[in-house]
């Protein structure tokens, strides 16, 4: 069980910033609360729908000719059917089992590797920091989408490579935040105390630095899941991500594109689902930021 130093949290949330700032913060907090709760509920529904997809979906997502091809939304097919007569609603439900895990896994890659890099650079300092910061700066020097596309260009398309590409592209952003936090934490008295009783750097990082660096990591990770889902669907849409017939949301949109004039529901529903999911995640992330880490506000 991680235990968070109350001292550090108090320092973070406290700090008088003028009555006006305080009033504004309280106001936005109150304003955001219902919206964030609503977003959490929406997100929960998407997650539950993904888990219960086999139970909830009326048809097999890959079964063809479940009805007439390109039939519009109706009682038999809530969201209509695609060109092979597959049921769009079922495919979207199963698509959530592809898109959500890819987003979470990609962000896990960014979080783990980014935190490792950031903690090492920020806490150990010295030559490690010189090299680590250099790596972070160089990675940040690349346009974000290029890093992902470069990896796809070398590894090829497919689910696993999408996770790697988006995950690696996110590393420098996590590393930068974590390094900054680690630098600040290093100066605290409890770290000095830990050193004085002979704790190793590894132990200090594991028991003291990491738990205190967690709030910003959690906030950033939440927001990144949203952008990772967006990026995954974009890659799928470009034909560079998950390949058909896998029902990934972006890939489905791209398949529906040529029938836009006659079957607009094929692009409407997958896009709407990506949009709603990403907005919900962003709102939850904004809320977490307001609650967990006011320092990051407005950044």
């Amino acid at each position, binding site marked *: 069980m991680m235990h968070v130093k109350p001292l550090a949290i108090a320092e973070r949330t406290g700090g008088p910033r*003028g009555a*006006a*700032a305080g009033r*504004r913060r309280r*106001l936005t907090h109150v*304003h955001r609360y219902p919206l964030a709760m609503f977003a959490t509920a929406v997100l929960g529904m998407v997650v539950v729908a993904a888990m219960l997809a086999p139970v909830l979906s009326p048809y097999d997502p890959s079964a063809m000719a479940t009805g007439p091809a390109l039939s519009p939304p109706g009682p038999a097919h809530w969201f209509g059917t695609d060109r092979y007569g597959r049921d769009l609603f079922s495919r979207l439900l199963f698509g959530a089992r592809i898109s959500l895990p890819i987003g979470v896994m990609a962000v896990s890659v960014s979080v783990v590797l980014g935190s490792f890099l950031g903690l090492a650079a920020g806490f150990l300092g010295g030559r490690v920091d010189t090299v680590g910061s*250099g790596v972070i*700066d*160089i990675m940040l*020097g*690349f*346009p*974000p*989408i*290029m890093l992902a*596309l*470069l990896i*796809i*260009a*070398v590894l*090829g398309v497919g689910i696993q490579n999408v996770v790697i590409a988006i995950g690696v592209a996110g590393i420098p952003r996590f590393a930068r935040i974590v390094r900054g936090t680690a630098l600040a934490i290093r100066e605290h008295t409890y770290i000095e105390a830990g050193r004085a009783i002979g704790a190793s750097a590894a132990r200090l990082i594991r028991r003291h630095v990491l738990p205190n660096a967690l709030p910003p990591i959690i906030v950033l990770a939440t927001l990144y899941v*949203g952008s990772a889902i*967006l990026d995954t*669907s*974009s890659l799928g*849409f*470009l*034909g*560079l991500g998950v390949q058909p017939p896998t029902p990934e949301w*972006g890939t489905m*949109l*791209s398949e529906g*594109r040529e029938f*836009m*004039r006659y079957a*607009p529901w094929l*692009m*409407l529903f997958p*896009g709407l689902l*990506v*949009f709603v999911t*990403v*907005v919900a995640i*962003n*709102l939850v992330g904004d809320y977490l930021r307001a609650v967990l880490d006011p320092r990051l506000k*407005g950044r």
Partner: protein
Amino acid sequence: MSRYVLRKLMWTVPVLVVATTCAFLVLRLIPGDPVNLMLSGRPASERVRENLRAKLGLNRPLPAQYAYFVLHALRGDFGESFATGQPVSQVIAQQLPASLQLAGAGFIVGVGGGLALGIAAGLYPNTAIDGAAMFLALVGISMPGYWIAMLLIYFFGLRLGWVPIVGGGLPALILPAVVFGSYAIGNLARLVRSSILDVRGEDYIRTARAKGLMERVVVLRHALRNALFPVVTMTGLLLGLFIGGGVITETVFARQGLGALLVTSILTKDYPVVQALLLLTTAAYVFANVLVDVVYGVIDPRIRYQ
């Protein structure tokens, strides 16, 4: 000042070296023999293969290959496209004007729209105007670019027939520009709003108010000056992202341009083109970032001495 610029320029060197190395390695890391890609499945004698390998320089030791690649890249020579046999520089030059057009138009829409929304929200915080502007901004950030594009095409192009969705000319540029700019609109609006709100408590704002200036003048003339910093950042980023930003927009609208070219060349495994675009994009991005830093240094002398 010149030392500051020089320091910023020095920083580009390692990034460009790494980018060059990545570009170089792309062709060496892909599974299989690049010569097979050049032949795209056609049978060929060992002699022909040997010739092709020599042409790519693959028969030389790795360091020599690297030196060869870097020296030629510096001269803008990235070899020939696997797909068409054209020089890569020529392939890129053909697509560049379309990309620049899109980037220019998208930039105007993005910065104009973002500033307008951000100022509106900053002038009237916690009102319906603020709420509407921030909702639009959230939509711009969260909505997949390709989906915005398809909705716009469907409603304004197919249903209402207001704008052409294919072809050249200014009318056909409207929707792509909106899509290209949508992400910038969202980000910029949020940044401008929060910078305006941040400077509200500053002394010089209080002074301006004490002088009896109208609230609008206070915000537009005094608060906004500081709110312009994010605009500079966003401008630089957009300048650098004109290829990456075009990837989605150009594909959805079936436009020409470097983004579309990049997607096609990745899909067709046309690696010389991929290498060149990778380097070009990174260089554009890096130098745009330097430009941003230099402009910051000019606006705010404090930054130069950090």
